[in-house]
């Protein structure tokens, strides 16, 4: 059985990391792995197809947050988790009630 390799980075003694930083590190490594081994390189085909159709493209990594309450679903994205959650909050505030016809 092939040995699973992992990368370990020793943090300086006394270094403090937040939960968010660890989450971000994990997401960054996950993205690198996906790019090489989970078909992550296939993005070029879609990118080129869109460019051929006249689109000017831009891509960046972001936070995506989702919320589910019964039948309602909301999702938002942002450069920071706070941005994404702020957007989610704004979207959710649109539907406080169904309202009267």
């Amino acid at each position, binding site marked *: 059985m092939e040995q699973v390799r992992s990368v370990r980075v020793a943090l300086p003694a006394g270094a403090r990391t937040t939960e968010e930083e660890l989450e971000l590190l994990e997401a960054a490594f996950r993205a690198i792995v996906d790019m090489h081994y989970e078909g992550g390189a296939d993005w070029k085909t879609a990118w080129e197809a869109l460019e051929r159709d006249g689109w000017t493209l831009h891509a960046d990594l972001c936070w995506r947050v989702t919320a589910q309450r019964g039948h309602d679903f909301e999702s938002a994205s942002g450069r920071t988790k706070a941005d994404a959650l702020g957007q989610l909050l*704004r*979207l959710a*505030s*649109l*539907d*406080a*009630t*169904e*309202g*009267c016809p």
Partner: protein
Amino acid sequence: MSWETKARAHFRAELDSIRSAGLFKEERVIRSVQGAEIEVEYPPGAPPRKVINMCANNYLGLSSHPEVVRAAHAGLDERGYGMSSVRFICGTQDIHHRLERRLTEFLGTEDTLLFPSCMDANGGVFEACFGEQDVLIADRLVHASIVDGMRLCKAMQDTFKHSDMAHLEEKLIEHAGRRFRVIVTDGVFSMDGDLARLDAIADLAERHDALVFLDDSHATGFIGKKGRGTHEHCGVVGRIDIITTTLGKAMGGASGGCVSGRRELVEMCRQRARPYLFSNSVAPEIVAGALQVMDLVSRSTERRDRLEENAAYWRKGLSEAGLDLRPGDSPIVPVMLYNAKLAQEFSRDLFQEGIYGVGFFFPVVPKGQARIRTQLSAAHERRHLDLGIAAFRKVGAKHGILGLKRKEILAKFGE
């Protein structure tokens, strides 16, 4: 996936969950024309029963007005039944343009574009006019069609607490970097019947260089001294950038809506609003009927004056009977019951007394805010109102809520 093996079971379960939550909507069949008195078949199969209608948007009583019906018949004879086309291909008749000009004049705007409904107008206007550099800041109680329209638009979406001008100003400052900030509000809010503070909103918009959007569906034809709407009532005619409204309520009650306002914004809708571009023209007979409605509301304020008197009389009568009302100046008069089950039972009991009024409860209104929303009409005669007040008093006494306010009703019935 086949319908029989998986999908049918899924949707049946969904419908069952709606039923068990007490949220299943049932239609009550009317076997008469719309009016102050209607014949309703309820429960289904029961002999039709004459009741006083206290829940229609027929504010001016024009839904079955003989002059409107006659004009619609003439429209049918002269311009046909339907257009079989969208407006910009071969669906525009002279009467469509005539009605748009009449609405522009009546609302005091620069231009108007008809839509199949105000739901469609609200669904199309934001996406047609605004983009990702902009922000739409809506009152939290705006109509569902505005929420849908905002969601279809790429602009950032935000809200301010209901009629809270300080919160609105915070939001205008927070979003100062956006290209356009658009304040979005109803004129008369359908849930509570209260009016937007349009004068304060227009002032804030000017101070912060923002635009104002107004949905005046529950106001056009009767709010303001000449019935032009909330902007007339608040003295801000000419200061509202976009008005959407409906022909489906006070203005004859058939269907159709419009976007009216700054010439360039209306033209953007003509070029880009998808409900305008991809759905049929308003039918000729409805346009002809609406032109007659425009004549009636422009000729005299007698009907809107009578509606105002009726609303005041109704409010006074119910208050004196000891019912708890939401304060306001519009013909939407919510009778507050707070408890959802009580609202449903109250509505059923009223029907037995010959009064048709519908209970609203969560999620239509916030939890603990259940009510019977009553709506006045110029078609109501004094005897209708007296019978209605007597019925509310009788049913209120049956449930022991006369003279009680929110706290006491909730203590008795729970939320």
